[in-house]
Every structure is written in structure tokens, then in C-alpha cells.
């Protein structure tokens, strides 16, 4: 219909006007990118929250009012409710001293939940990056090879992807972690090893469509090697969906790590992670008496994951307007 055509034409013109040109300088690309990203209000909010969370995790030793692993005095104040003012009380030696406020209360061993949350953030926020780093790498290589070579190589590689995708990831992770030892490093590696299938699919699809394009033909004609064509000519063009998938993947990885740690199959105590802080909180009488122990760590997971998802959505709008529905 005519009006649809008209609208499409306009849309195309807008896209052309705003799309990144090969000749654009990096700073110009960045400018266009930022202008588009800024339009997504929730993504901007998410980005600000993430900056705050990462800053406070990095500077945890300066911000945390207490030692996250507890001090002898802590045992006197088990399950203390949150306070926002400093208070005076007796310490182990019977001296009356001023204690700093416990913003998020204290846990069953009297440790300050706020300080623990800050240190736990270091773990949880790192896990996302490391495991997604692993799986983006595997996914890109796998998808690139499958998409570039096609044929029987592609069929076999994608069948394996299908198979891994149809295994319930959580069950697979539990199995692997039960067989190997559950600890921080294994969790990161295992999430990385199981999560790459989505990236592989994206990269493969991009490769299938890109390898038929003229510039790849041209590269082949001037005698570029396969590896050079893959990494120098095709891959940069396939990066936009991968960056989006990776950002949302960090969100997923943080969620998975916290769930595993909650089961006791992830980060092991006494090292705090947001997930394992909740393990002890799930007993019913603890929940009634000291709900803050269950609320704050979980809320931080939620906010972090939500922020990553918003930022990912904003990146999608900014990097690849085609993907926006």
C-alpha cells in the first residue's frame, strides 16, 4: 500500500542518515551511538546504577563500615535489625564503644549485611564478565567456523548447539558442579562452557548472510586467507548483535551464579556472594525474625540484572536499529 511504502522510504532515509559509515571516524560513530543510546531512558538509568554498583564494589574496603568476615564483637549482636544511626553498646571486653550503623542489619553471626553485600558484589559483578567473556569467545569461534564453511561442518556443529540448547541448563550446571568441585572458578568456567550456544547462533546467522556480500567476495578475490576474511572482514560486521547478546548474557550469568550459590553449588562460604548470603535466610523462622538478611542481597541481584538488561536493550536500539521491533 502506498502509505506503507512512503513510511518505509522515510524510515530508510533516516537509517541511512544515521547509520555508521565506513568512513566515519571513531569519535563520530561514538557520537551517533551515544545520541541513540540516550533516547532509551531506562538504559541510561541502568547504566548509572551499574556505575554506582561497580564503583562501590571496587572501593568496598573504603566504604564498608565493618569487616565482611566478621569481628569478635559481632557475635554479641546476631540478627540485629537495620539501624541508620551509630549506637553505643558493650564490646567483647565489656567496654562501652560507639558502633557504626548497620544499614542492612546483621546476620546470624552478627556480621554487617551491608559490608558483606559490598564485598559480595565484587564476586557477583566479576562472575558475569568472566563467564560471558569465555562464552562469547567460544560462541564467536564456533559460529564463525560453522557459518563460514557451511555444509556438513555447519550441520554437525549446529546439531551440537541444538543438543546443548535442549538440555535444561540449570540441571546441566548442577550436574557438572556436583561432579567437579563447586567453587568460584568452576562456576565461572562452567557458565562459560554452557552459555555460548546463543552467541554461536547469532554469529553463524550473520556469517551466512555476510559471506555472500560483495566485500567478502572482493576480499577473497585479492587473495585473503580464510582466517583473515573471518576475523578482519566479516567479524567486525557481525559484532552488534553479539555485543547486545553479551550484555544481556552478563545479566543471565549473574542470575545463574546467584542461583547456584544459593543452592550451595557456587561460591562457597565464608566468601560472600549475593546468592549464598540468601542460603541461610531461607529458613522460615529466620525469614520472620530477620527478613533483611533475605531482602537486601536478593534485591541487589535483581537491580543489577535488571540494569544490565536495560543497558542491553538500549545498546540494541543504538547499535542495530533493525533489531528494534
Amino acid at each position, binding site marked *: 500500500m502506498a502509505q506503507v511504502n512512503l513510511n518505509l522510504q522515510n524510515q530508510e532515509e533516516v537509517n541511512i542518515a544515521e547509520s555508521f559509515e565506513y568512513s566515519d571516524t571513531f569519535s563520530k560513530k561514538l557520537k551517533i551511538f551515544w545520541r541513540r543510546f540516550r533516547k532509551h531512558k531506562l538504559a541510561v538509568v541502568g547504566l548509572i546504577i551499574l556505575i554506582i554498583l561497580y564503583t562501590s564494589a571496587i572501593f568496598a574496603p573504603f566504604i564498608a563500615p565493618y569487616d565482611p568476615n566478621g569481628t569478635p564483637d559481632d557475635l554479641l549482636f546476631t540478627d540485629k535489625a537495620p539501624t541508620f544511626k551509630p549506637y553505643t553498646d558493650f564490646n567483647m571486653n565489656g567496654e562501652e564503644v560507639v558502633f557504626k550503623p548497620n544499614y542492612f542489619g546483621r546476620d546470624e553471626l552478627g556480621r554487617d549485611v551491608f559490608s558483606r553485600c559490598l564485598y559480595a558484589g565484587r564476586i557477583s559483578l566479576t562472575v558475569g564478565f568472566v563467564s560471558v567473556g569465555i562464552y562469547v569467545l567460544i560462541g564467536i569461534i564456533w559460529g564463525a567456523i560453522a557459518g563460514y564453511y557451511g555444509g556438513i561442518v555447519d550441520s554437525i556443529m549446529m546439531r551440537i548447539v541444538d543438543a546443548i540448547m535442549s538440555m535444561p541448563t*540449570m540441571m546441566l550446571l*548442577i550436574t557438572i558442579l556436583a561432579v567437579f568441585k563447586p567453587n568460584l572458578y568452576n562456576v565461572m568456567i562452567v557458565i562459560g562452557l554452557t552459555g555460548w550456544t546463543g552467541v554461536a547462533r547469532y554469529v553463524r546467522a550473520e556469517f551466512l548472510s555476510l559471506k555472500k556480500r560483495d566485500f567478502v567476495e572482493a576480499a577473497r578475490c585479492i587473495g585473503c586467507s580464510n582466517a583473515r576474511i573471518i576475523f578482519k572482514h566479516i567479524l567486525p560486521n557481525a559484532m552488534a548483535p553479539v555485543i547486545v547478546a553479551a550484555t544481556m548474557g552478563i545479566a543471565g550469568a549473574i542470575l545463574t551464579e546467584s542461583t547456584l550459590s544459593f543452592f550451595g553449588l557456587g561460591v562457597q562460604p565464608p566468601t560472600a556472594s549475593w546468592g549464598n548470603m540468601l542460603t541461610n535466610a531461607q529458613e522460615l523462622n529466620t525469614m520472620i525474625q530477620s527478613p533483611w538478611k533475605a531482602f537486601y542481597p536478593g534485591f541487589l541481584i535483581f537491580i543489577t540484572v535488571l540494569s544490565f538488561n536495560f543497558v542491553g*536493550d538500549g545498546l540494541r536500539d543504538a547499535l542495530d536499529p533493525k533489531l528494534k521491533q
Partner: protein
Amino acid sequence: MFKYIVKRILQAIPLLFIITLITFLIINLAPGEPIYMFIDPESAKHVNIEVIKHKYGLDQPIHIRYFVWLKGILKFDFGISFLEKRPVLQMINQRLFATISLMLVSVIISFLIAIPAGIVSAVKRNSVGDYLFSTLSFIGVSIPSFWFGLMLILLFSLKLGWLPSSGMRENFDQFDFVDRLKHIILPACVLAFGTMASKMRYMRSSMLEVIRQDYIRTARSKGLSERIVIWKHAFRNALLPIITLLGMLLPGIFGGAVAVETVFGWPGMGRMIVQSTFSRDYPVIMGTELFSSILVIIGSLIADVLYAVADPRIKYN
């Protein structure tokens, strides 16, 4: 149509093969002797390890061991639990109904909400409702289900006392519908909320795609009301791809069920696998993992066949 179904079943076979291979590799790449995957380390102290190895065929090369193991799986031999000393399949069988019913109820709840929400978002695009649902779906994928479950228990069970927090009887002999309903509401809602988001977004984009189609314009030009155009002509077309989405979402629903069952003490497979990790009951862990993967493949097979039945276009291709 028949050909399509046969083709689809044939496609599932290599998947099952790869899944068994992955599971087998996990067992055999484990640190230490793989023999402890088959026998309880406690009881192994008193016997000659070499004898046991021979008994389980562990002295054979790895590829032969795989086929021996695979033969067992094909005969539904998933091994024997260390802890309970009975076949794993029997234990799974006992838990299966609880898991399936939880998943089924949650899928129904999520569809009942996601489908209308997705349609409203698509039809009233960029309206307040659209933004609200889209934000809700972001919350849905971002909220840790175990924490959300705990918060709901805190609110509805502990503070308000409306619903039980856990304590679903493991034996399903005494069937009390109301009691069961009370138990299932919270866990099913938590599970549904997590998986709702993707259904909603998928429904929205599917609907956006459909309402642009020419046949929708035809329907309008016939003088049909907007209600009939959307809920009859567009709805059925937009709904069809959602059936296959269910197949893709099954692994995630299984995964979600693990956390939800653990938090709510729901006597299903998910809780069993988590409990088994503490007792290092490897046959149960592996059996549950393998069994749930097989269920997923069967589930998506059913979804694809249903799609073929529901979409008249398939018949002619």
C-alpha cells in the same frame, strides 16, 4: 504432514545421541576414578576396586564403555541410587508428576497473562500499557526466582498467612484438590512470572508482524469489527508461532523449576537433584539431568507436531 512428523522425529535422534554423549563425558572427565560415579565411595572401601571395575566394564576402553552405558540407558537403566539403593528411574517416576503439574500450571498461568498482554502491547503500540508490559517483562527476566519466591512466602505465608509456604505432601495418594491448589499457587506464579516475559515479547512481535499483513486489511474491508479482526483473524495467525516457542522455552522452565521447587519444598525432580548434590548421589543427579533433557526433546517434538496440525500451510509444503 506425515512426512513432516517423521522428519522431525528423525531430527530428534542425533540430538538425543549428542546429549547422552555429553552426559557420558561429564562422568568420565570427572576428577578421580570414574568408578565412584557408579558405586558409593563409602562401600567401595571394603571391596576390591579391580573386581568392581571389571563388573562395570570400567577396564574397557572409553568408546566401548560408552556403548555399554548407552545400551543401559536405552533399556531405561539409569543406575541405582547410592543413598536409597533403588533404581533412579523409579525415584524420578515418583517425582515426575509433581514437576510436570507445577510446570503445566505455570505455563497455563503465563500464557493466560502473556498472550493478552502481548496482543494489547502490539495493537496499542507505544501506549502506556505497552510500556508497562514491557517494563514488567524486563522485571520478569531479571528477578531471581528463588528470591522472588522467598519474598512471596514472606508476604503471603508468613505475614498474611493466606497460603502455605511449603509442605506439599510427597505422596500424592490423598487427593485434596483445594489443598493442592493452595500449595501450587505461589510456586506456579513465581515460575510463570520468570517465563512470561519472553512469551509476551514474542507474542507482541508476532502480532505486530500479523497486523501488517494484507489479509488483516481484507478482513477490515469486509466490514468486520476491530474486535473480530484482532481476536479472530490476527489472533490465530499470531498464536501459531507461539506453540513452537513453548518447545524452545522448556529447558528454561525446567531450570526455573529447580529453584522454585527448592524454595517451596515442592517434591519434584528439581528439588531431588539439588538434594542429591549434598549426598553426592551421582546416579540420581545424572539420571535426572539426562531424563529432563529427554523430556525437553519430546516436549518440543510435541510442540512442533501440534504446530503442524494447527497450521494449514504446513500441509502443502
